[in-house]
């Protein structure tokens, strides 16, 4: 297990290094330079040159890449040249809002989806089983930002049940939850049917295995077999799904943050693109990519810890 852990984390680190190098090379290859774009058409060549030096763009590409990773190891993502604050500070100020949104968006579908999935597996072809089947296709058809728009239109603008914009009073948990309700609902909706179908399929597989047959032969109740034995194994695919799903959740969060004007990484990136604030865009993309790579690695490790067969696969 230790060997697997080291190998898997090493792969994650390698992927992050390659990903960031690719991004830096791209910045270098793009025609026109960031300094000119950032300052706009009215800047003098001297001003552009000064900014280029401040951002380290005058150095050769190899040096830039080397410096980038050296700084990264010290937790330094560069300086925001407009506000004169470290990019890391700005990004980590916004990150909790996005993480809070992602948590709100995935916890309820996992709970509800698991319940629906287990029920569907034990009551095949029942009304609820068929409904979740249809639901899983129908709701996935609407991307998170479309659901967000309708949620905003119906529950905030028309019915005025829930607040439309912002993240609420940071000191009041209840208030923050109230502001999370609509965005969390919008992102999570498409996951309910998906998780339910996955749990159903994996439960059906587990229920066919010999140890369940043995449990039945011992006369254990169906309830105990489903929830006590089968669910433990049947829930495993959710872990992998959550790891890979982090990328989708981060992407969906960008749109949902814009629709509900919530602070967060997504809104930070969009605002920084609009104000041509390159270092902040790079920093935010870096942090969200690391988050994604790390969450897939953790999911793999959790899977390996729970299922010895996986360890040998890498």
């Amino acid at each position, binding site marked *: 297990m230790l060997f697997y852990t080291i190998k898997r984390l090493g792969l994650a680190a390698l992927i992050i290094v390659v990903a960031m190098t690719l991004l830096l090379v791209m910045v270098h290859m793009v025609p026109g330079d960031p300094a000119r774009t950032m300052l706009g058409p009215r800047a003098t060549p001297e001003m552009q040159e000064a900014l280029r030096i401040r951002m380290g763009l005058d150095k050769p590409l190899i040096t830039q890449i080397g410096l980038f990773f050296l700084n990264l190891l010290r937790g330094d993502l560069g300086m925001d040249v407009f506000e004169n604050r470290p990019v890391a500070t700005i990004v980590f100020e916004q990150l909790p809002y996005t993480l809070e949104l992602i948590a709100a968006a995935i916890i309820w579908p996992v709970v509800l989806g698991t319940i629906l999935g287990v029920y569907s597996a034990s009551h095949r072809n029942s009304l609820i089983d068929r409904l979740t089947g249809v639901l899983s296709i*129908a709701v996935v058809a609407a991307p998170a930002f479309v659901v967000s728009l309708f949620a905003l239109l119906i529950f905030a603008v028309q019915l005025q049940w829930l607040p439309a914009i912002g993240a609420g009073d940071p000191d009041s948990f209840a208030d923050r939850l109230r502001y999370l309700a609509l965005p969390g609902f919008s992102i999570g909706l498409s996951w309910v049917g998906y998780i339910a179908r996955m749990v159903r399929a994996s439960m059906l597989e587990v229920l066919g295995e010999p140890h369940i047959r043995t449990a039945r032969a011992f006369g254990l109740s169906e309830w105990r077999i489903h929830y006590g034995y089968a669910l433990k194994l049947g829930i495993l695919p959710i872990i992998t799904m959550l790891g890979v799903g982090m990328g*989708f959740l*981060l992407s969906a969060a960008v749109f949902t943050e814009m629709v509900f004007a919530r602070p967060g990484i997504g809104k930070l990136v969009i605002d920084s693109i609009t104000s041509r604030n390159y270092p902040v865009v790079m920093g935010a993309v870096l942090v969200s990519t690391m988050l994604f790579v790390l969450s897939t690695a953790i999911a793999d490790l959790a899977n390996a810890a729970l299922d010895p067969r996986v360890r040998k696969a890498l």
Partner: protein
Amino acid sequence: MKQQSELLKSAKLILRDPLGLLGLVIVIALVGSAIFAPSLAPFNPTAIDMKARLSGPTASHWLGTDQLGRDTFSRMILGGRVALQVALPSIAAALGLGLLLGMVAGYGPRWLDNAIMLLFDTLRSFPTVMLALSFVALVGPSLGTVMLVVIVTSAPIYGRIARTQTMTLKSSEFITAEEAMGARMPRILLIHILPNILGTLVVLASMDIPAVIALEAGLSFLGMGVKPPTPSWGSLLKDGYALIRSTPWLIIAGALPIVMTTLGFTFLGEALRDVADPKLRRTR
């Protein structure tokens, strides 16, 4: 002759599946309305009519008008054109690139396989929208940027599948026979392996078309996709968001085709997959 009857059988199977048929109808309607968009749209989608601005549905403006008095229905029809213009070429390019790299990785030497797999893993490690936004930050918003993002993020998915399938085929007897006769890699890959894996991948790729359309709409919604006044489903949603307190019609006109397209391609794709894989056909 035999192949034709096989095709006919597949067509019949799709037509017999009600959801598959529905999917086919939706996809045909979408493609048809995109091709004939200029003659189908009752108004010029960019014509401004300030007297008729922000109207609800009327006899002449079926889905109302926007803040500039442009006809929403016409903009919706023309938006389908933009959606397909982005989705079809970029998915085709991603499929081509993924097939090429995946087959080479699966058939070629081990070090090349490792290098290509690392590239795939790296490209998949960016959250799609974040990568799209960093491209937009670098080269500016345009449909070309959206297409580039689709190619970069989708090619690894197809590549991985192509690689696995190539590896399975690699050890089969007919490939060994070809190798014994001295066939080189390009011949083996293009003439013997490609035809065997193309079908599955085309079905998979066609099921990704709605995701690409949603990405284009999403970026256009953020103002990072098409430039105004080009009509796109995303820009309809963008205008609808700005006017959310005055009219719901723009959001409906932007969302409806996205949802319908996704359902259409999903139903059709699932029917095609069942036809392509008889094992699934039986268990259903």
